[in-house]
């Protein structure tokens, strides 16, 4: 029982981060049909900027805020400089553009920061909580609570605000969105900025547990993508479910089989989804045009 609960929490914690990455993928994919492989770099920026600002003496909450702003600005630049000018390019071209952007961001991070691994102090101490005999880090609760808050906030934004509906309208029918007076280019920039901010928050929350370095983005992008595929790409609920399921699969594969296979799980999931479940668990988003 103790081991099960331990693995469960470990799985949900990493799964929550994958869910945030997958949600970032989903938001951008819905609004623009771009699969943004630079999504993992936003998570990296979240952790790294916070670490360096914090080590330079900035209080942790402010350092975290700065990191979110830097990531959102990077997302905005990515859209304005690389995606928007490539208007009319094929999906494959756009994917290559985002892969190029991710390599660039990683390279710059390596120069501006360094190649070391870095830690942040846990937000509310390192004293584990005892739950059914398992030792749960308080930071895990921060990750779960923070991710949950973001998911809820994003849902409220998309369902309850006119601007959120404008994002959905742009996703559903770009031409019609322009005809009702939505500046669709601005909406897409907003989608990139919000996706980046969401990724950054994931990076900040999880760094006290997993450490961070300039290079963590690549694997996170892959796993977030696997999670998004698993849930049904373009489907926000699917992204969250896919992320959590992937995190759990990894944790239990590591705990019950061998930790050597942990990272392999994501690749296995991608292959399985491609061959057996092309719509994902919850189905692709109805990006239906009328």
């Amino acid at each position, binding site marked *: 029982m103790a081991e099960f609960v331990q693995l469960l929490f470990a799985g949900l914690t990493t799964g929550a981060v994958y869910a945030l990455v997958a949600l970032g993928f989903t938001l951008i994919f819905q609004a623009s049909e771009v699969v943004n492989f630079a999504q993992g770099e936003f998570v990296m920026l979240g952790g790294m900027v916070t670490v360096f600002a914090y080590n330079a003496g900035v209080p942790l909450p402010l350092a975290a805020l700065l990191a979110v702003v830097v990531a959102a600005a990077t997302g905005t630049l990515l859209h304005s400089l690389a995606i928007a000018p490539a208007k009319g390019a094929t999906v494959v071209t756009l994917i290559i553009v985002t892969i190029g952007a991710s390599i660039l961001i990683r390279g710059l991070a390596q120069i501006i920061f360094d190649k070391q691994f870095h830690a942040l102090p846990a937000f509310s101490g390192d004293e584990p909580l005892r739950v059914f005999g398992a030792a749960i880090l308080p930071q895990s609760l921060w990750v779960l609570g923070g991710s949950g808050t973001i998911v809820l906030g994003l849902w409220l934004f998309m369902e309850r605000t*006119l601007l959120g509906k404008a994002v959905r*309208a742009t996703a559903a029918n770009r031409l019609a969105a322009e005809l*009702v007076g939505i500046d669709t280019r601005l909406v897409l920039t907003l989608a990139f900025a919000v996706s980046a901010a969401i990724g950054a928050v994931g990076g900040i929350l999880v760094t006290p547990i997993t450490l961070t370095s300039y290079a963590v983005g690549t694997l996170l992008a892959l796993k977030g993508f696997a999670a998004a595929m698993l849930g049904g790409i373009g489907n926000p609920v699917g992204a969250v479910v896919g992320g959590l399921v992937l995190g759990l699969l990894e944790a239990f594969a590591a705990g019950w089989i061998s930790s050597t296979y942990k990272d392999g799980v994501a690749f296995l999931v991608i292959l399985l989804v491609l061959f057996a479940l092309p719509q994902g668990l919850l189905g692709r988003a*109805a990006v239906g045009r009328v």
Partner: protein
Amino acid sequence: MPPEPLLQVRNLRCGYGRIEAVKGVDLEVAAGEIVALVGGNGAGKTTLLRAISGVLPVGSGTIRFAGEPIERRRPDERVALGIVQVPEGRQLFGPLSVLDNLRLGAFRRGRARTRVNLERVFALFPQLAERQDTPAGTLSGGQQQMCAIGRALMAEPALLLLDEPSMGLAPFLVEQILETVVRLRAEGVTVLLVEQNAVAALSLADRGYVLETGRIAYAGTGRDLLGDPVVQEAYLGV
């Protein structure tokens, strides 16, 4: 005609890449008019409307709205000025509810205006009020067209660009939609109407233009065009 038309298009050229679909068009719409734009398949009617609403960039020529050149303005800015297009094929936001489609129509108008305009649209199309919570994509063809027109009205158009509003509709619905056009004009909306159904469009229009492979072939009052033997033979199937 008054000296300053609401819409004035001069020597307009535009198209898709190397294909020029509109080849030097002159067209005017005075405030309060219904102007019909007719012509065969691929004549360039939709292309011309898209250039006026701004979703298609202009190659050369000018478009003036209330005296102001607008051909370099973004589409959302033109909506704010009062140029609103009901696109060919409805183009609703399918997964969103009817109510959300309508609200988004008033995206540039603010909350208070949205409420007022919503009442007006529901009064015009009571069926939309009944189905306001259903996804727009699941409406019947006629209801979708009402939703598309309703969404455009939410933006408080000074100039309404209608692209084949009767396409694919049963005859009684066509009549209802065309009656709506006349009613809107009575409420002060200026209308540029594109129709395959040339006889119906010219009958209710003050003036009309016949577009032929990207050029204006004939222009005149609705009655003159309906009575012109050449136009009759080529476009009215008489």
